[in-house]
């Protein structure tokens, strides 16, 4: 049984949308962070699917780079979250209000 490539692309688009909406509506910074990761991973799925369709490896190589960059982003992000938590004892993004216009 083979699954049509379009299904993978639709799944990836759905995951990307869920991630984007999550960043915009969730208030916990950790969950917002996870949503960004979801977006990046849906891009990976898209890239790998297109690499199969196009029958070259560029997309898979790009996916590896994305994985590495996402890991680096998590390192910096969690360091900032931990420091923010130390200053405020909360991970609620709504409380981040010192910079409101």
């Amino acid at each position, binding site marked *: 049984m083979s699954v049509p490539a379009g299904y993978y692309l639709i799944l990836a688009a759905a995951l990307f949308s869920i991630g984007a909406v999550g*960043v915009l509506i969730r208030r916990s910074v950790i969950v*917002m962070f996870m949503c960004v990761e979801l977006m990046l991973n849906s891009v990976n799925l*898209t890239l790998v699917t297109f690499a199969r369709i196009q029958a070259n490896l560029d*997309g898979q190589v790009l996916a590896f*780079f994305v994985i590495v960059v996402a890991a680096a982003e998590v390192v910096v*992000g969690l360091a900032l979250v931990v420091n923010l938590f130390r200053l*405020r004892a909360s991970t609620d993004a709504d409380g981040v209000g010192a*910079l409101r216009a």
Partner: protein
Amino acid sequence: MSALAQQLPAGVEIPEIPWAAISPELTLFGAGILVLLLDTAGPRRRTSSVIALAILLGIAALAAIPGGAAPEIVALLVGAGVLQLALTLWLHTRPRLLGAVLTVVALVATIGIAAWQYQAAANGGMVGTESLLADMVAVDGVALFTRFVVAGAGILTVLLGFAYLQDRRIHRGEYYPLLLFTATGMTLLASAADLLMVFLAVEILSLALYVMTGLARRDMASQEGAFKYLLLGAFSSAFLLYGIALVYGATGTTHIATAGVALSDPGTPAGLVFAGIALMLVGFAFKVALVPFHMWTPDVYQGAPTPVTAFMAAATKVAAFAAFLRVFTGGMEQLAWIWVPAVSVLAAITMLVGAALAVVQDDLKRMLGYSAVAHAGYAAIGLVAVSEIGTGATLFYLLAYAIMSLGAFGILTILERRQRKAIAVADLRGLWQSAPSLAVMFALFLLSLAGIPGTVGFIAKFGIVRAAVDAGLVWLAVVLVISSVIAAYFYIRVIVAMFMDDEPAHLADAPVPPASAASTAVSVAAVGVIALGVLPPAVIDLAERAATFAG
């Protein structure tokens, strides 16, 4: 290399590494690693580790001689070894000063190498306008121009930041390596010829900038600014990346020029083309802060330590616009009918909203943050002109904006040391009486940002208007003028406060601290504003000649 190539099966090509072409990035990155190592080594091991490094460089120089390397490279290696040895022995008890000096040396070296590359390219030498490193990077006019601006901005930032960071007790060792790494990312971004390289360079520069924004660990505003920057930066990177993935899916390649040609082929699925371009556009609009994707800019500019803000405003904007230009104006010229209307509307909204929101701000850093949004809108006009004149105008505008914003944020750096708090417009009252030279220079930068004739800001805006009219986008030029009129109000409000009002009593006995390095940097920027405003033809010519993309 040749021995290795023989062992590999046929069909695998090892790209030739163009050492000369990517030497600015190598210099910046190497210097970043060196400063990081020296800082973590501690005072006693610092000397021994630097001696080991100098010996290594010497061995490399010896190995390069039979390798057939040019004598200049050997001399450079030896010179670099001797220089860092001497500097470290001289400054080994003052690690921050050592880091600052090494950073400035690396940035000056980058300018030197870029000047040599420019010379070589002009003479048709080895560094031409071609794609290198398996078509990953292109050393062309845009790349060289950005290297100059980024390295120059970095030097002024180091000068501005030294005393300021010391005063706020956030003068950490990692500051200088991060500055060098982010500069590496910026120069790479400006020379990226492949969408993969665009993504990687954006991340290199952003990751270092997130940490630099959050350098003040005990300061809530700095932490929140850093976190917002990280979250929205990653969010926008995801959009950029999804756009790249769709373009790859439509064309089967990530090379900018090849993908651009393939995208305009009528056989390519239109849905993928539209979606890919739209998503990449959103990603770039976030990075250069076009409304409605600008919401991170004021927060980040206000929260970051002021020298970091200055560097962000000056250098990040140039690098992000260089990549924007390269991907859209350079790569997708035939698809201009899709993206030019969209970017034009974004630019118009950006100019008006940025200027209007800046009017109601009281905090000066935040006001300049919104003004940076408006200026991104002006620079974007040169982009939608899709012409060599337009590209040259945008490049010159970015150079002008870099000088003006470094100067303006530099003045704030000096004043913040005096008051030890964020500067509001009311705090500037009567500055003319207590610090006339600072007041005059600040007025000069603000007038230049407003675009008053006689300053570089006017010449830059003039170039943008010329490009817009040339491309038949008169309505954008009109919006630019309206936005400039709105913007003039809040710049002049600050000038009035400095020159017309009396000094408040609590500031009368707070002397402006002596800061020779920062004042030097600000004075250099002031000289630049006047010099380029009075005799700009040479640099405009340079910017227009830089408006070439490698194919």
